[in-house]
């Protein structure tokens, strides 16, 4: 017997997961909450909700680990009192999770085969509580009317709830009016929004919440409580809430936090999984963010700020750059749909971009004759070169010039359709000067390296391009294996050097395959070379290139 004692010691020290202090704390809270139904009580309850949930979780685990109800009653003597009080607190029973935990604890106290009077009594009490909770009517008049008119309780309660929601909606629908005492009626709206915090996920409250979100903002008073907006955001990201389009847009408009969540979640969903360009566009459009940006300039500015900060940390990340391009494309499309109603100039959406470059970059290649592309790109390239030279002329630590270059580059990323045209024109240049295009490509891939790096990158790019050009313009086909190998070394990393923009090289190769008049065997060789470099690319780059290649090759073969 004495040998067993040391074994039981560790168990006992683990036991106070739930100490008496905690139980007392929550019991006191439950009593306080039950006594008053003031806005302060409501606020206090909401503040403590997640902690209470955790506590109930712990309680549930403890109760379930006990061997019998008698043991539970001995170890946690105040449990019954606490549960009994919490059952009548609507803020706790309204939420599925906490209601579930509460009921779970009650079931934990229930004995299938009660072995003594205490357990029998506990069973009776539990049945009584549950019966009262679901069938008791505290209003005499309501009960009388239900009986006499034959309306069942469930229907009655639903009707009353819907009526209350409708009345509140009327309240919310009223525009802001100043009373004689100069207190804005928006105060009432704040109270309503606060009251909705515990019920954000209840479908019966959704129309009210929608209305709250979409209420036109008329005065300076903040009409929606921040806690309310945060509760909505977390419920939405947990997918515990369905919001209609316009309500969601309004939520983003009111809450920076929710907008940020939405953008980051979009980023996560498109970057981790490889997506074809079509799928990417679909995903971006489905996120509703471009639509929201078109409706509210402020949303677009915030989204771009988020993109900027990500790109500043990872400018080489092709997936992010592709996303930014696709996003801007979707946004412009949405804006064009809205155009008749808005009179905001495009400049308002791109306040930080160099104004001289704005319209030229935003114009789509399809909006001008193909013959004009060359000149347009030449102009773009030289404008951008000038900008970078200005930056470099200023003293090395000047942030103004640096800022301008970054903004110009960011705009180029947003309008990367011109970069794609540049590659295309480069490979079809023939003997004409492709230098400006090459410069543009380098700038796109390496915006912030200092000029001597840029110059060296330019030299390497020229070298690579010449190599590719000579490889494929020569008459000898199929290519000798050593030539192919040399292509491979271009892109695969040498131990001493960094690999040279594999995506740039691949993009050149792909465009060669597509736009140059190669015999089918030539295209196959390019494909082979591309495959060799695949390991150096991110999965999404690979997918988009593969897709493009397959699409164009099938056109070519057809």
């Amino acid at each position, binding site marked *: 017997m004495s040998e067993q004692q040391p074994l039981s010691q560790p168990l006992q020290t683990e036991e106070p997961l739930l100490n008496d202090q905690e139980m007392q704390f929550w019991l006191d809270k439950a009593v306080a909450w039950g006594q008053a139904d003031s806005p302060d009580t409501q606020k206090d309850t909401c503040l403590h909700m997640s902690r209470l949930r955790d506590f109930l979780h712990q309680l549930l685990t403890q109760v379930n680990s006990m061997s019998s109800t008698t043991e539970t009653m001995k170890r946690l003597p105040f449990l019954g009192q606490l549960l009994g009080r919490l059952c009548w607190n609507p803020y706790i029973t309204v939420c599925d999770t906490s209601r579930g935990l509460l009921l779970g604890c009650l079931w934990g106290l229930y004995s299938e085969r009660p072995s003594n009077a205490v357990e029998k009594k506990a069973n009776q009490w539990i*049945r009584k509580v549950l019966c009262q909770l679901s069938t008791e009517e505290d209003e005499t008049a309501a009960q009388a009317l239900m009986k*006499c008119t034959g309306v069942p309780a469930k229907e009655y309660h639903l009707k009353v709830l819907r*009526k209350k929601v409708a009345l509140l909606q009327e309240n919310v629908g009223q525009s802001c009016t100043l009373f004689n005492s100069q207190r804005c009626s928006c105060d009432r709206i704040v109270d309503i929004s606060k009251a909705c915090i515990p019920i954000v996920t209840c479908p*019966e409250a959704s129309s009210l919440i929608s209305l709250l979100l979409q209420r036109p903002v008329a005065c300076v008073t903040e009409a929606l409580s921040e806690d309310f907006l945060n509760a909505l955001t977390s419920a939405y990201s947990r997918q515990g809430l369905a919001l209609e389009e316009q309500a969601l847009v309004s939520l983003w408009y009111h809450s920076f936090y929710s907008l940020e969540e939405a953008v980051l979640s979009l980023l996560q969903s498109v970057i981790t999984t490889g997506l074809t360009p079509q799928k990417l566009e679909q995903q971006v459009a489905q996120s509703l963010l471009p639509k929201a940006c078109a409706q509210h300039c402020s949303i677009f500015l915030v989204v771009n700020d988020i993109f900027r900060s990500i790109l500043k940390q990872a400018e080489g990340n092709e997936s992010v750059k592709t996303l930014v391009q696709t996003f801007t494309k979707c946004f412009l499309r949405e804006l064009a749909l809205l155009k008749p109603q808005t009179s905001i100039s495009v400049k308002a959406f791109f306040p930080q971009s160099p104004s001289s470059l704005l319209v030229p970059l935003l114009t789509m290649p399809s909006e001008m004759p193909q013959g004009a592309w060359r000149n347009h790109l030449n102009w773009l390239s030289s404008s951008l070169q000038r900008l970078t030279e200005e930056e470099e002329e200023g003293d090395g630590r000047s942030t103004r010039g640096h800022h301008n270059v970054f903004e110009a580059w960011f705009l180029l990323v947003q309008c990367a359709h011109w970069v794609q045209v540049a590659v295309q024109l480069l490979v079809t240049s023939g003997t004409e000067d492709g230098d400006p295009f090459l410069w543009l490509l380098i700038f796109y891939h390496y915006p912030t390296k200092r000029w001597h790096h840029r110059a060296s990158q330019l030299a390497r790019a020229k070298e690579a391009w010449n190599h590719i050009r000579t490889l494929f313009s020569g008459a000898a086909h199929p290519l000798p294996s050593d030539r192919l190998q040399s292509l491979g070394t271009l892109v695969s990393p040498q131990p001493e050097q960094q690999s040279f923009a594999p995506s740039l090289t691949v993009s050149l190769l792909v465009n060669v395959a597509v736009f140059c008049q190669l015999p089918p065997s030539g295209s196959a060789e390019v494909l082979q070379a591309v495959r060799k470099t695949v390991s150096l690319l991110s999965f999404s780059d690979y997918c988009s290139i593969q897709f493009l290649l397959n699409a164009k090759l099938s056109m070519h073969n057809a």
Partner: protein
Amino acid sequence: MEAVLKNLASTVEMLAVAAQSDALNHWDKQTLSRAFHWARYCEHVFSKFHNNAAIRRIMEKQLQLTNQTLRDTIPGYTEVSFSDLPRCQHLLLVRLLNNPELPSSLMKILFDTTRPVKTMHGDYEDVTGLCSHIVQCKSVYKVLSPLADMSALGADAEVQGEMLMERLEALLNQGSETCRAEQFLGSVLQGCEGALQQFCLVIAAALLTSKNCTAQTAAHDFLLDWLQKKHSLLQYMCSLLSPTLLKDLAKEHQKLRDASCNVLKKWASEMEYSLSDGEWVLTSTGPGVSFKKLTELFLALFDASPSLRGDVEKELNALKISDGDFDVTGLSVWGDLLSALNM
């Protein structure tokens, strides 16, 4: 019809089992769903046939028979009447939850908190989470009810008023069965014993429902006539109503306007001047108002109906003259009333 009557009888028997029998111990999820299915069937039967007097009589007879049999075999049996049928599912639920033999597994199903998807369990609709949903609905309302809204009566009174009107209209629609409508109102009043204040709000809400159809106008008329016969109730109502509410009611219903005007005049005639308060007060027992409120109520009535003002002025003047026609405060309630009303 035979089949329907048979089903009705079986369901009532099932309700008795649910209420008191230990056979409940053997029920499983399937049995539970089936029970609710048949309860729903009875609700459906009621809604289909309650307007048909002949069929209703047959059904009432059947229920009488079944109740008789059950009363003889089960001690403490609660009868199920025809008018209970539209709430059959609720009755079933109450009986089940009050029966200690209900297996805890079934209780757990009823209180399940995962959002119930309306699936068919076998042939019958799933009842998982039924009670959980009710609790949630009540809780949402409790969370929202402290908030101020656009209604002077409150969401609950408004809904209760609508329920009253709907039933009243249905009863009056069935031809010259005004006694049933009288019975109905009487039983509601009786049921509201101890909650008379709420009852008055319900009547007010009922009178303010606006559907603009002949059925409703007839029902309103009936309700007003009934109310007028109950003097003390009418008086009580007038003492409770805010001036705004009285104005709204008086605007819609001339009968009520006149009836409440009479109540106000009666109150005025019963008032005595209290030297210690420097005010006219009602000394009689029963519901009443202060002099101030009396004037506010009068003004509300005049707001609702400007023509009334002239008539009342004439009346009050005549009464003042009969009191001696003095212009001194405290001598004639009519004179003081006239001056308070700025006449």
